[in-house]
């Protein structure tokens, strides 16, 4: 077999607490990201993603403690994104135990940030996060600030730019689909996956297992990220693996 299609649950974290997380298992503290990470570790998730959506500057450091406590008990790859503005921000997360750091708005404003991090810590640890909205047939634009602020930057061009600056992979989120449960924006995912040589993670809009499969077969993604279908117990990671395997895609056995 070849490299497996990765299934990646994503947890939103604010001020060190899970904002919208697993609520179907009996956890002593369902707001603790570490407890939730352990659930996904035991469930056979291929990687885990924390998105730090902490709004206040004062609470920013809390993610470092969350990452350190997670890395002490979960021996799976961990990507952390949200608020990474400098190579030193990335360094702090990596030293705490993150394996990859996702850069978003700061790399839109200054794509050289990617090279700053890649040169110091390697391309393998830099994930370029792209939030895009459709602005016409086959055209997508980069939006920042949670999808509210247009930038005028073409999403596929930005993906190429980030790849040329040294990202190890791209996390492509459709802001049109995020939260809709209507499935990934497949043309967007495919346009970017076909334009770059690095892996693409499809994100935004998963409502069922068929959406995960389509992300790979039609979106050409190497990995599929989802939140609510896992958090609310609608489907397990094993269900996701089984659906991908049934479609003939390589997945982890266990």
């Amino acid at each position, binding site marked *: *077999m*070849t*490299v*497996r*299609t*990765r299934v990646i649950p994503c947890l939103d974290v604010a001020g060190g607490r899970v904002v919208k997380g697993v609520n179907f298992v009996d956890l002593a503290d369902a707001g603790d990201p570490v407890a939730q990470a352990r659930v996904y*570790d035991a469930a*056979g998730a*291929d990687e885990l993603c924390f998105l730090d959506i902490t709004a206040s500057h004062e609470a920013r450091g809390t993610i470092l403690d969350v990452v*350190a406590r997670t*890395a*002490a*008990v979960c*021996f*799976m*790859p961990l990507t952390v994104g949200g608020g990474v503005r400098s190579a030193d921000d990335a360094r702090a997360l*990596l*030293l*705490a*135990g993150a*394996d990859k750091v996702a850069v978003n708005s700061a790399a839109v404003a200054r794509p050289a940030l990617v090279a700053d991090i890649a*040169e*110091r*810590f*390697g*391309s*393998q*640890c830099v994930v370029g996060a792209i939030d895009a909205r459709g602005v016409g047939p086959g055209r997508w634009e980069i939006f920042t600030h949670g999808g509210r602020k247009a930038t005028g930057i073409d999403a596929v061009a930005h993906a190429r730019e980030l790849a040329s600056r040294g990202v*190890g*992979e791209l996390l492509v989120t459709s802001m049109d689909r995020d939260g809709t449960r209507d499935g990934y924006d497949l043309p967007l995912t495919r346009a970017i996956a076909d334009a770059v*040589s*690095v*892996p693409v993670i499809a994100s935004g809009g998963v409502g069922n297992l068929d959406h995960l499969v389509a992300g790979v077969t039609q979106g050409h993604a*190497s*990995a599929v990220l989802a939140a609510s279908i896992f958090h609310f117990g609608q489907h397990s990671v094993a269900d996701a693996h089984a659906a991908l395997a049934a479609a003939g895609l390589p997945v*982890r*056995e*266990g």
Partner: protein
Amino acid sequence: MLALIDYGAGNLRSVHNALQAAGGEGVQVTADPEAVRGADRIVLPGVGAFAACMNALSAIPGMVPALHERVIGGGVPFLGICIGMQLMADAGEEHGRHPGLGWIAGSVRRLAPADPALKVPHMGWNDVTPAREHPLIARGEAYFLHSYAFDPADAADTVAATDHGGAVTAAVGRDNLVGVQFHPEKSQAYGLAFLARFLEWRP
């Protein structure tokens, strides 16, 4: 005492955590050549670029000679992980040609999958397929994350392979040396079991 070499590698903490979870006692994170000379087991982690890692290791006064003395001279069990494994080669060809530790003959070259649709970096879970009998290597699935791979000059030094548009070295080994391209510290039960075997290894 197990010396886990601290030269600024990004995965140091994760490797430390995993060694402890695998049952490792007396793990000492160290940048001290004297500690290396007193170690009875040595782990070299590493992520990033070959030259940057070799430069960082060489920048610690006396570290490379101490490693050579203890590992090659003293014969203590040695484990290199990811770039830590690639540094065992004669040279790396990432951003120019750079000398490595030269413990296992061969070069580190960029992945060039035969199928252009395959992505680089090779990122994710993939097979570890034993190439020959080795007490540490078990068949299974492990997490890989790399754009360059070790190409040993002597095929007998390859102890496991994986596949990414062609065979890719997953582990090298000779005598008291073993190196793995995959990340045992990120490979859940498979990885912890591998580290547990290393901790017990008497080559």
